[in-house]
């Protein structure tokens, strides 16, 4: 390789690096103003997309060309084309959809129907409803496909448990008792651990997915805040740094947890009732939604402090960053 080839190679790689560092868009769903706020990489609001009644969870398609949004009161999932930032279609989701996940192969959507105590499984390609799984506890919320897509884990708020469904047979194969009011789940360490946020216990239950045993119950304690106001909800995970960020709801803080030794390293102050969370800027920044102050906080993870807050719509729920 000649010298100029090496230089070109380095320059090209630098640009590729730049493009991966900067996020293209940030999406925030506002459940009480029925909109999605779209911000650009400079965190300027560039568009507000009207979705209809109560948009909540959002996920990208595998090829990152589409954004799926559950619109709870309309009983469907809106599909947003990321190029045009317009809704291009709707998928029927069953009643009152709340949280959903897309299978690792991109073929299935599993969505929790909180009011009906059901999980609906949808074929992404045909947009047909394939199955409804009943008896998943009272008020199912968090939904996650396991790493290979073999199982669907559902957190059931009213029954304090995680229900495990075999994706193929659609049968409930196991149920694990966790803390009180489990809200969301997160697979980490290559799918070997499943973390569950227990809103009313102020804790996270860590489950070993190989033997379904509880490894640890991690209790949070923030100085100056009552334990009963520590209400964990959402997660963000940096595999690069092996850190898990847990939003603590009414405690208005985000906990930083070390993935290898489960130590809680820091509590970072965010806005009022912090819920949704997503990483950006090469895992150096965390964006969180503050449900009671109608804004998002940008947290600098190197300085470990919030550096700005940006007003969005009413009651921001979920944030997703396009990397």
């Amino acid at each position, binding site marked *: 390789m000649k010298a100029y080839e090496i230089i070109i190679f380095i320059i090209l790689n630098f640009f590729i690096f730049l493009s991966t560092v900067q996020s293209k868009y940030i999406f925030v769903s506002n459940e009480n103003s029925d909109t999605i706020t779209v911000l650009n990489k400079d965190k300027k609001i560039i568009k507000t997309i009207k979705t209809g009644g109560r948009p909540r969870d959002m996920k990208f398609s595998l090829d990152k060309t589409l954004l799926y949004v559950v619109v709870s009161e309309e009983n469907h999932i809106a599909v947003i084309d990321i190029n045009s930032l317009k809704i291009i279609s709707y998928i029927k989701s069953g009643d009152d959809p709340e949280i959903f996940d897309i299978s690792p192969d991109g073929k299935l959507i599993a969505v929790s129907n*909180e009011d009906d105590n059901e999980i609906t499984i949808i074929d992404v390609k045909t947009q047909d409803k394939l199955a409804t799984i009943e008896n998943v*506890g009272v008020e199912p919320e968090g939904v996650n496909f396991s790493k290979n897509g073999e199982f669907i884990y559902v957190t*059931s708020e*009213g029954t304090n448990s995680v229900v495990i469904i075999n994706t193929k047979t659609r049968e409930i194969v196991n149920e694990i008792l966790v803390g*009180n*009011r489990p809200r969301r789940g997160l697979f980490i360490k290559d799918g070997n651990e499943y973390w569950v946020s227990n809103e009313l*216990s102020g804790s996270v239950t860590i489950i070993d997915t190989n033997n379904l045993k509880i490894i640890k119950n991690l209790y949070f304690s923030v100085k100056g805040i009552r334990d*009963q106001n520590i209400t964990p909800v959402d997660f963000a995970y940096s595999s690069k740094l092996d850190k898990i960020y847990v939003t603590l709801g009414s405690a208005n803080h985000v906990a930083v947890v070390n993935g290898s030794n489960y130590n809680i390293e820091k509590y970072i102050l965010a806005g009022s009732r912090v819920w949704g969370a997503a990483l950006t800027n090469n895992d150096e920044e965390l964006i969180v939604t503050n449900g009671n102050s109608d804004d998002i906080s940008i947290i600098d993870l190197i300085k470990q402090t919030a550096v700005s807050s940006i007003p969005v719509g009413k009651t921001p729920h979920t944030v997703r960053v396009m990397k």
Partner: protein
Amino acid sequence: MKFSYLYIIFFFLTNHLEADDLKIYNIGFLDIKEDMRYLKWGIHPVDIRSKLNKEKRPIQGALLAIEDSKKFTRLTKTKFLIEHIKKKNYEDAINFLNSKNVKKFETILLDLNIQSLKYFKKILKNNPKTIFFNISDPNNDIRKNICLDNFFNTYPSNAMYTDSIAQYLVKKKTQKSLLLTGPLVEDEKISSSFKESARKFGIKIYKEKFFVNNNDPRVRDKNNLFYLTKGKKYNNVFISDTDGEFALGVPNATMNPAIVSGSAGLIAKAWHWSYLRHGAPQLNGRFERMNNRRMESKDWAAWISIKTIVESVLRIQNISNKNIIEYLKGPDLQVDGSKGIGLNFKKTTNQLRQTILLISSNNWTTKVAPLEEFTDSENNLNTLGLSYNQTECKLEE
């Protein structure tokens, strides 16, 4: 067809096996037909005469809890059964509680306006293995005098209700009260509870007046708001009116501009359908689909009573009442009542700590008590209701 009996035997066998796998926990729900609280008190005067009016009995909240409990079966391995024990009047209900039939139930929910407390306490004491829940009587004296391990209050006390209102009045800097008390014993109980709350939170009661709900011109000082609310020395009116009809006319009719609270205006409730947070819409939705009406405070209290039992069985994996009582009274109980905070019982009074909703006449949750300005060294929910020292329980220890 020849072997059809075999199928029948097989069917019974499998059913039997299934039932054998699950433990059974029996719950009774005791209420009476002649209960003014559902026939007249607090019911809108138009509704009383309306064909659309339905009695809003909290058995429906209990039935929802039983329905919900089925979703726990995989983990509790227990079937919770309920029997509605309907009696004609209070005496019949007491006779039932004195009978051996009580032993059929592990837990009994009491939907009664409890009379003669000493005697009632004796009955409960005679059944120490049964767990009782008071799901509808707010009387402070029950909390002050019945301190038994097997008796729990899930319905808020009058003290919790009047403390919630008092906190709100202090926050709004309207601390000069005119107290209007109705003719029923229950009205007096509410007013005396408000007086205790006023002392606790620094509200000055400028005057207490007693009203009657009639049009007699000879007692217009008692039935006419012009006379009842004249003067300018108050900035809020607290009204105790269990019947409720007179109170309806008080907001917007006081001679001096004032916040009206108590039985009209701003009303303290354990539950209301306008609460939109913490999974409340889901609970309301389940109740409405099942019962075709909206969920109210007593429904909620019945629902949460059974839920605390289910939660205990779920956590301790055991259906013995001895262990359940231990768990209910212990520090680990954090039951989710869709109020956004883990709920548990106060020591000795066995009153369920909970947030109270302050509901406006426009059916809106104006505020949730305890207000954030009122704090307690142990648990902020303790700023509502009677503290340990205000009860007889201490003396019995």
